[in-house]
C-alpha cells in the first residue's frame, strides 16, 4: 500500500479513528492494534513475507531476553552472533544471493572457465533492509547494555513493524522508539496539525517533484546514447531531485503519520542540497542510516581514533557498506566508493566537521563562496547519482563519456516521453526556492500562515502532481 494511493486514503483515517476512539482505553490495546494494522499494511504487498518479519521479531525478542538474563560475556556474545547471523543471513539470502553467484561465475568466466548457473528466482521482500537494521539496533543496544530488553512482545513486535516507517524508514533506534510504545499517548493537537503539514509537504515532494522528474529521468537514462550533453546533464540533475523528492517525501509522510498517532520519529533529511561539502551532505542525507552506520559500524571499528590510515580504512568501509546496503549491484558499490573518494580529502585535512550549522543562517542570501561550495557539492553528488541510477557500471561510464563530450548540438532534445528535456527545470527551481526560504525550519509549511501554506501546497499538488503514472517509492527496492 503506497502512501499516495487511494487505498491508503481510506486506510489512514480508518486507523486514526479506531486508534483514538475505539482502542484508546488501554495502551496495550492500542499497541496490539498498531501491530495488526502494520501487518495488514505490509501484507498488502505480499502476505508471504510477513513470516520473515515475524521470524525476525521472534528471534530478536527471545535473544534479547536471554541476553538480559545471561551472566557470562561469552554467552551474550553467542546470542548476539545468533541474532546477527539470522537477520543478516535473511538479508543476505534475499538481497545478495544472486549477486554473489553471478559475480562469482563472471569472475571464472573472465578467466575462460564456464560454470553452471545456480541463481534463483528470488523476490526481494519490501523494506527488508530497513526493518532488519531496526531490529538489529535493538539486539546491539541490549548487548551493549545501552537499553534493557523489553518484556512486552507486543510492544517489540509493534516497534519492528510500525507501519509508517516499516518499508522505507526512517530507521529508528530501539532506544528512541521502543519506549514510546510503553507510554500512554496523548492527543496533542498542535503536534498532529504539524504532522498533517509534513504529510502534505511529503506528498508534494513525491508526486510533484519526484514523479515529474521521473518522466524525464526514465526517458533520458533509457535512451542516453542518442541524447546531447545538455540533456544528459539535466538527466543527472533531475535524478538528484527525483530521488530526493521520492525518499525525503516518504520520510516526511512517515514522520507526519507517526505524529498523528502520537509518536515522534527522527528527522531523516535536512535540506541536503544546501550542503557546503560532502561531509555536511552526509549529515543531512538519510540521517537515520548514516547515524546507524556511525554508531553500529564506524565507532565499533575504531571511528576516528588511531592514525590516518586507520581512519581512512574505516571511512572506506562505511561508504562501501552503505553503497552495498542499497542493493546488489556494482553500481551501488561504485556510488559508495565515489562518496568515500569525495570524503577522504576532507578527513585528511581535518575539515570533515567544519560545517555543523545551516548555510546562510543569519542572512537571506548565501555568499558567493557558499554558492560555489553548494554548487560543487551538488555537482559531485549528481555525478555519483548517475552511477546510482545506471543499470550497470558500463552504462554509467558511457553516460559520463557522452555527458562530458560537451556536444550540445544547438538543439533541445525532444524525449520519448513527448516533451523537451528542459521542461522540468521550473519545477525544480520552485522546490529550491521554497526550501531555501525554509532551511532553518524542520519543513517549509511550519510556522506562520500554516493553513495558507498548506492550501497553496494543495493547489500545487492538484495542478502539478503526477497522478496518472504513480511510481513506487524508489527506496522500496532497497
Amino acid at each position: 500500500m503506497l502512501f499516495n494511493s487511494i487505498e491508503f486514503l481510506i486506510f489512514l483515517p480508518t486507523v486514526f479513528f479506531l486508534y483514538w476512539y475505539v482502542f484508546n482505553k488501554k495502551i496495550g490495546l492500542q499497541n496490539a492494534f498498531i501491530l495488526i494494522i502494520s501487518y495488514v499494511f505490509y501484507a498488502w504487498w505480499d502476505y508471504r513475507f510477513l513470516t520473515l518479519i515475524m521470524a525476525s521479531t521472534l528471534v530478536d525478542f527471545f535473544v534479547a531476553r536471554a541476553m538480559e538474563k545471561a551472566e557470562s560475556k561469552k554467552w551474550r556474545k553467542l546470542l548476539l552472533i545468533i541474532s546477527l547471523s539470522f537477520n543478516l543471513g535473511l538479508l543476505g539470502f534475499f538481497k545478495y544471493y544472486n549477486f554473489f553467484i553471478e559475480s562469482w561465475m563472471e569472475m571464472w568466466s573472465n578467466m575462460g572457465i564456464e560454470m553452471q548457473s545456480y541463481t534463483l528466482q528470488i523476490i526481494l521482500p519490501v523494506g527488508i533492509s530497513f526493518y532488519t537494521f531496526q531490529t538489529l539496533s535493538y539486539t546491539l543496544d541490549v548487548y551493549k547494555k545501552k537499553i534493557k530488553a523489553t518484556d512486552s512482545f507486543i510492544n517489540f513486535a509493534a516497534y519492528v513493524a510500525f507501519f509508517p516507517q516499516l518499508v522505507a524508514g526512517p530507521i529508528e533506534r530501539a532506544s528512541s522508539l521502543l519506549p514510546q510504545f510503553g507510554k500512554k499517548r496523548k492527543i496533542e493537537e498542535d503536534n498532529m496539525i504539524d504532522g498533517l503539514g509534513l504529510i502534505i509537504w511529503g506528498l508534494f515532494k513525491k508526486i510533484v517533484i519526484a514523479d515529474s522528474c521521473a518522466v524525464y529521468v526514465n526517458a533520458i537514462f533509457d535512451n542516453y546514447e542518442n541524447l546531447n550533453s545538455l540533456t544528459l546533464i539535466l538527466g543527472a540533475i533531475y535524478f538528484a531531485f527525483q530521488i530526493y523528492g521520492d525518499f525525503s517525501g516518504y520520510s516526511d509522510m512517515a514522520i507526519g503519520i507517526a505524529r498523528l498517532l502520537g509518536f515522534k520519529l527522527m528527522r531523516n533529511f535536512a535540506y541536503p542540497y544546501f550542503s557546503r561539502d560532502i561531509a555536511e551532505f552526509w549529515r543531512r542525507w538519510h540521517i537515520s542510516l548514516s547515524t546507524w552506520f556511525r554508531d553500529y559500524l564506524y565507532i565499533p571499528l575504531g571511528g576516528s581514533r588511531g592514525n590516518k590510515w586507520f581512519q581512512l580504512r574505516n571511512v572506506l568501509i562505511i561508504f562501501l557498506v552503505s553503497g552495498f546496503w542499497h542493493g546488489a549491484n556494482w553500481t551501488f558499490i561504485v556510488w559508495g566508493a565515489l562518496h568515500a573518494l569525495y570524503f577522504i580529502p576532507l578527513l585528511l585535512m581535518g575539515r570533515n566537521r567544519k560545517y555543523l550549522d545551516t548555510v546562510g543562517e543569519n542572512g537571506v542570501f548565501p555568499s558567493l563562496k557558499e554558492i560555489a561550495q553548494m554548487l560543487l557539492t551538488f555537482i559531485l553528488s549528481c555525478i555519483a547519482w548517475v552511477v546510482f541510477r545506471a543499470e550497470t557500471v558500463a552504462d554509467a561510464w558511457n553516460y559520463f563519456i557522452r555527458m562530458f563530450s560537451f556536444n550540445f548540438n544547438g538543439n533541445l532534445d525532444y524525449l520519448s516521453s513527448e516533451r523537451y528535456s528542459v521542461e522540468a527545470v521550473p519545477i525544480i527551481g520552485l522546490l529550491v526556492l521554497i526550501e531555501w526560504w525554509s532551511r532553518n525550519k524542520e519543513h517549509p509549511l511550519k510556522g506562520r500562515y500554516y493553513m495558507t501554506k498548506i492550501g497553496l501546497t494543495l493547489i500545487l499538488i492538484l495542478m502539478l502532481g503526477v497522478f496518472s503514472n504513480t511510481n513506487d517509492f524508489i527506496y522500496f527496492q532497497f
Partner: protein
Amino acid sequence: MKKFLKKIGILLLLTLVLMQLLDWIYTYAFTHSVPRNKVQYVLQMEPQHIDYIFLGSSRVENHIISRQIEEKTGKKAINLGIQGAQLADILLMIKLLDEQKITYDKIFVQVDYNYSVKSKSGISKSYALPYISNPVIAADLEQNDKRFLYYKYIPFYRYATHDHLIGFREVAASFFKKNARIDLSDGFDAKKGEATLEEFRFPEDVPQKNEIIEEIESIVKTEDRELIFFCAPFCNMTVNEAYLDYLSGHMEGFYNYAKLFEDEQSLFWNCGHLNKEGAEAFTEKIIAQHLKS
C-alpha cells in the same frame, strides 16, 4: 481533537472547492484555445467537405502526407491518425466527424494487428475527456469506460488521472496559445532518420469478427462515400504474417501494403513506422492506387 478535526474539515472542503475550480478552468482552456491535438481539432472544425480522410494510429500519422495528396490531386485531404489509436478510437473519430457535419468521399482506416484490440487507447481517450459534455463522447465513454461516472461526477478526476496529456502542462500551453507541434490541418508527423529494426510479431490468433469494424462499416458505407481498409508497410522482419493474409481474405475493401517496401529498409524508422522518405513513397502509392481520377 476538535481543533485538529476542524482543520481536517477545512482542508477537505478546500480540496473539493479547488478540484471544482480547476475543473472549470481546465475545461474552459480546452474548449476555448487553439487546437493542440486532433480530437480538439475535429471538435472545432466548421461543417465542410474533405475529400479524403485517413484514420488510424501512428502508422497513419507518420505515413500519410496530406499536403502531398492535395498537391498531386487538387483534392482536400487530412491525416487524423493519432499515436496509439485503436479501432475503438477510430470509431469515435468517425462519429465525431458526422456530428461536426464533416462530409467526405473516401475514408481510409488502418487495420492490422489492431484488429485484435477492442479497447480504446489511453491517448485518444485522454484527448476526448475534456469534452465529456459532448453527447457523442459521453455515450462512447459510458459504453467503453468503467470509470465514466467518476469522470463525470468527481470534479477534476478526469484531468488528474490523465495529467500526462491533459494536465497542467497542456493547459498552460493552451493559455499561452502555443501551437501544436505539428500542423493539424495536415496531420502528418514525420519520423526522421533510421532507427534499428527489430522483429515485429503479429498476434497468433485472429478473431473471427470484429464488432467495431462492423460498426464502422455501418456508419461510413453509404452510396456517396467509400470506406477503404489498409495495412501500412512493415519491414521484412515480421512474424506470423498469416494474420494479414487472413484479413485480406475476409475483409472486403482491405489493401495489404505490409510488404510494399520489403527490400527498401532505408525507408523505415523502425519495423512498424516509415521515415519521412518512406512516408513520401507510401503516400505516392496511395495516390496512384486510390486517388487518381
